[in-house]
């Protein structure tokens, strides 16, 4: 059963249209990530679900009920904000049960839920502290606690980890994921970090310029990017997107290219990790720079004026200025229509 559903949502600020025809559904118990570059409209989408913004047109449904005109409190959601939104004058315990007090839940029940949440988040020793006496990770946990004690089925998260350092971000990411699965929460999670999205999501909605580029599982987004934008946004380092011109078509052996008529405008996408170094076959290119990353090495090379990035396992004895032959399997090529960026299947029998 889909618990959240957005139908034909449009949102404008004055003359600028920030969301255009957004349609999606989120299943019960699912962790749905709204991913996209900054300013793409992902936070606005979340705020529309929360009821903090009202759509210009369209319908928001939660739990099968049209909530488009209801205030946030009547939507039975909880929300975690980017800067945690902890009240500086209240201590940890008071912050966590803030909403329960507002909703006049009996004292006994408040205490039970607080203890439960504090235990779950490892905050039991910090209940008397003020937010200013906590570290970033602890503040984040308090914000999560507030969301847990609400005991509502839908939890909305607006870039919850963006203020933490890299290591802590990874820990909290795993913690949020395991918490979500344990408590069977439905979660809508906004982030601009594709690694965060890939690791945490059941499904991802990639938004760009106010429209949905693709809605699918992380595997689908990685293996079958629906548009050239998805291809270049998902994956690290990003996918190589090449515009085949006569020079490239001459330099590249035809066995490496899909069998289409290149007089029409196409884009070729190939992931850095799908490219191999070859000794005898493939395309000639010139190494421009190499970056050693420990587990693998990133090599940027040039073919005429095209730049191609590839990654290889471990350390390779290649340095800038070397000639190199690179090779890939033709089925690893993602073909896109240059006019609208849409994916074109070039292999028989391949289905996304």
């Amino acid at each position: 059963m889909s618990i959240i559903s957005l139908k034909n949502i449009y949102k404008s600020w004055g003359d600028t249209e920030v969301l255009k025809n957004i349609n999606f559904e989120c299943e019960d118990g699912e962790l749905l990530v709204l991913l996209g570059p900054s300013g793409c409209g992902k936070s606005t989408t979340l705020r529309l679900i929360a009821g903090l913004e009202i759509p210009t047109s369209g319908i928001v449904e939660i739990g099968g009920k049209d909530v488009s005109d209801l205030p946030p409190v009547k939507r039975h959601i909880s929300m975690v904000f980017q800067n945690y939104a902890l009240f500086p004058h209240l201590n940890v315990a008071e912050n966590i049960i803030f909403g329960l007090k507002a909703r006049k839940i009996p004292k006994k029940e408040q205490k039970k839920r607080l203890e439960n949440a504090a235990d779950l988040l490892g905050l039991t020793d910090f209940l008397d502290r003020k937010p200013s006496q906590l570290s970033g990770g602890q503040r984040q946990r308090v914000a999560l606690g507030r969301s847990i004690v609400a005991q509502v089925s839908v939890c909305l998260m607006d870039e919850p980890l963006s203020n933490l350092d890299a290591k802590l971000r990874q820990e909290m990411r795993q913690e949020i994921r395991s918490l979500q699965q344990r408590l069977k929460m439905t979660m809508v999670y906004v982030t601009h970090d594709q690694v965060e999205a890939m690791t945490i999501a059941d499904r991802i909605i990639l938004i760009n310029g106010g429209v949905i580029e693709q809605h699918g599982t992380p595997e689908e987004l990685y293996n079958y990017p629906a548009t050239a934008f998805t291809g270049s946004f998902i994956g690290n380092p990003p996918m190589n997107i090449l515009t085949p011109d006569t020079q490239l078509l001459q330099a590249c052996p035809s066995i490496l290219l899909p069998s289409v008529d290149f007089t029409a405008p196409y884009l070729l996408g190939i992931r850095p990790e799908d490219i191999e170094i070859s000794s005898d076959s493939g395309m000639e290119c010139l190494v421009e720079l190499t970056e050693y990353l420990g587990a693998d090495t990133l090599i940027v090379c040039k073919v005429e004026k095209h730049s191609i990035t590839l990654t290889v396992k471990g350390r390779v004895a290649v340095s800038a200025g070397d000639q190199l032959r690179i090779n890939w399997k033709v089925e690893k090529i993602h073909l896109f229509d240059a006019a609208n960026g849409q994916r074109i299947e070039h292999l028989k029998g391949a289905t996304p």
Partner: protein
Amino acid sequence: MRLWGVEIGKIIETAGAWLLGALWLLPVVFALWSSFHPAEYSTRFELFAPLTTENFVRAWSYAPFPRYLFNTFILVTLILAAQFVLCTLAAYGFARFDFFGKDFVFALVLLQLMIMPEVLLVENYRTIGELGLLDTIPAIGLPYMASAFGIFLLRQSFKTIPKELIEAAQVEGVSALGILWKVYIPLSKSTYIAYGLVSVSYHWNNFLWPLVVTSSVNSRPLTVGLAIFGAPESGVDWSIITAATVMTMAPLLVAFILFQRQFVQSFMHSGIK
């Protein structure tokens, strides 16, 4: 430029600060000196002059100071309470809600800041007269209760509160008045303290309007009582007058010493120096 290894600008600055400080302190020191010594030492300095508290006792009994003190206390409490309620609600409206003509109305409020209360003396007297409140304590306070300064100060303070906190409260189902009470007011505590001190000290010391509107012991505040007490026709005894003055300002002085940290901090925070 330097002199004895210290920058001259710094020396002038320090000297200036001390000079101004001394000028401010001089009357206070004189009042303290004269009030604690017998009359013959009131204009004469002698280090070991005998100390006495008799001036205070006499001043206390010569005029109904307890009653004046009570009146002033009621007055400042009344004004402060009314100001807190009115200014909080007005500031909340200006800080959080959009309504038709908001900017225009706020400009009117700011305009009020530029009008000296003394200009309105006659008009206010007529209004109070029509209300039938002449010579009462509310009459002294009424013109000051909707304070433009208070509205402005609180609005600025409310505006600095992060939007996320408000939204978090909204998501949790707190009503508009609940948000004011649970989020805005507690987070603006230092502004309230600072504004409270400014208001109390202003109205504690206010003189002209209470003088005009009061005419009996029952409503006269300390300042007016003191002025009548010290008027030449009642004979000039500096020791007693200064004793009465010290009594008048003592409660305020103590409050300032107690709250000075919050006071200064709050003004730093609200960006008004």
